[in-house]
C-alpha cells in the first residue's frame, strides 16, 4: 500500500440477468481514488452478481464497466481483489502456503506485497505453519481477506466480508479499508452488518428494483 493508487472505476448502464430474470438494469456509478461504495439490498437483488460482474466473472447483460488510470491494456479483473462467500482456502496447505501461493499467482511477474507482513494483519502469524483445514470458519475468512494485503491491487470487492468474523476482527477490517482508501484505493463492500466505515457512496439495489417495478 506504499504506492498510491490512481485508478478510477466507472459503471455505465449495467444490467444483470440471472436464470432468465433481470436482476437490475441501467445501473451507473463512478468511483474516484479513495472512494468507497456500500452496496445494499435484500437477498436476491444482485449484490453478489454486481460484484462478480465487476470482477469479470459474470457477463454484463448490457452496459459497460471500465477502470481508468491503470497501465494501458490491463483488464479490470486484474485490478480487483474479490473476496466472496467462498474463501478459496486449501485445507491441506498451511496458512502460509495458502497465502504465498495467492501472492505468487496474483502478482505474476510483477513485484510488491509481503506475505509475512500480511500474516500479521489478523494475528494469524502464530499459526502460519498449521494446515488451514484445522482453522475455524472465522480464521479461514481472515486468511481469505489476507489476499488483499499480500498482493496490492487498487480495487477491493468485498462481498459480506464480516461473515463469521468476531467484533475485534471486524474493527481490524474497517481499519484496513480506511488505510486502503487513504492510499488511493477503491472499496466496494456489500454487508448487512454496519462496519462503522463512512462510505462516500451508497447503492441500494432494492430501491433500484422498486423503481423498475411499475414498468412491466
Amino acid at each position, binding site marked *: 500500500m506504499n504506492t498510491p493508487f490512481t485508478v478510477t472505476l466507472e459503471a455505465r448502464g449495467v444490467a444483470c440477468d440471472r436464470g432468465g430474470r433481470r436482476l437490475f438494469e441501467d445501473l451507473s456509478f463512478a468511483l474516484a481514488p479513495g472512494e468507497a461504495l456500500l452496496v445494499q439490498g435484500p437477498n436476491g437483488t444482485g449484490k453478489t452478481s454486481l460484484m462478480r460482474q465487476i470482477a469479470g466473472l459474470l457477463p454484463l447483460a448490457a452496459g459497460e464497466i471500465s477502470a481508468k488510470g491503470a497501465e494501458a491494456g490491463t483488464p479490470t479483473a486484474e485490478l480487483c481483489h474479490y473476496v466472496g462467500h467462498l474463501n478459496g482456502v486449501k485445507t491441506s496447505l498451511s496458512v502460509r502456503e495458502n497465502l504465498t501461493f495467492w501472492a505468487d499467482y496474483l502478482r505474476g511477474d510483477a513485484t510488491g506485497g509481503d506475505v509475512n507482513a500480511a500474516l500479521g494483519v489478523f494475528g494469524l502469524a502464530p499459526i502460519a505453519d498449521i494446515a488451514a483445514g*484445522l482453522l475455524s470458519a472465522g480464521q479461514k475468512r481472515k486468511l481469505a481477506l489476507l489476499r488483499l494485503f499480500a498482493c496490492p491491487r487498487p480495487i477491493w470487492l468485498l462481498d459480506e466480508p464480516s461473515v463469521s468474523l468476531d467484533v475485534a476482527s471486524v474493527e481490524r477490517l474497517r481499519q484496513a479499508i480506511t488505510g486502503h482508501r487513504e492510499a488511493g484505493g477503491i472499496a466496494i463492500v456489500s454487508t448487512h452488518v454496519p462496519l462503522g466505515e463512512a462510505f462516500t457512496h451508497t447503492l441500494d439495489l432494492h430501491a433500484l428494483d422498486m423503481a423498475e417495478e411499475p414498468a412491466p
Partner: protein
Amino acid sequence: MTFSLTNLANPTRFLNFAGTVIPWLAALTVLLLGVGLYQAVFVAPTDYQQGETVRIMYIHVPAAWVGMGCYAVIAIAALGTLIWRHPLADVAAKAAAPIGAAFTFVILVTGSLWGKPMWGTYWVWDARLTSLLVLFLLYLGLIALWQSIEDPGRAGRAAAILALVGAVNLPIIKFSVDWWNTLHQPASVFRTGGSTIDPALLTPLFVMGGAFLALFVLLHLIAMRAEILRRRVRVLQQTQVQQAQIAQAARA
C-alpha cells in the same frame, strides 16, 4: 506388578510400554534375522531340482505367513473398533495395513523372481499367487480408505467395516480363484513338491518365520506409536488454533 491388556488400552501406558519393548524387540529381530539368513544362505542344502533359487523360499514363505496373519490382526482389530470401541484398536488396524501390504508385496516380488527360472516368465496366474494378489489389492483399498477420510473416527469405523467384509470374502475369493485356475489350466503347470520337507530345510524356515514375526511386531509397535503421536499433534495444533483465536480477540 499387575500387568494386563486393559492397562495397555490407555494410549499413554501403551506409549511407555512400546518405548521399553521396542529396543529389545529390535535386538531380537536382528538376531533372528541374522541367524535365519545365515542358515538359509549358507547352511541349508540346495534343491536337486530348483538349485540355489530354492533359497528364495526362506523369504517368500515367512513373508506369506506374516502377510496373511497381518490381515487377521486387522480383522480382529476391526472387531475391536466396532464392537468394543477400543481406543487402540483403530490405531492398531491402521498401523498394520501398510505393513501387511509391504509383506504381501514382498511375497509377490519373491514369487515372481522364483517364477522366472521355474516357469520362464515373471508371472503366472497360479492360484496361490493370484489369491495373494487379491489380498494385496484389499490392503491397498484399506489404505486408500484411511487416507481419503479426514476425520479419524469415521475413517476408523469405515475401514473396520471394509476389513471385515474383506475377511468374510477372502475364503470365497480363495475358493473361486482355485476353481477358476483349475478350470483353465489343469494341475500340470505348477505344484510345489511333496509335503515331505527335509528337516534341514525346515529349521531355517522356522527361524526365518520367527524373525519375520518379530519384525512385524516391531514395525507394528513403531507404526502404532507414530500414529498415536500423529493424533496428539493434531489435537495440539487444534488447541493452538483456538488459542490464536482467543488471543487475537483479546488483543483488540
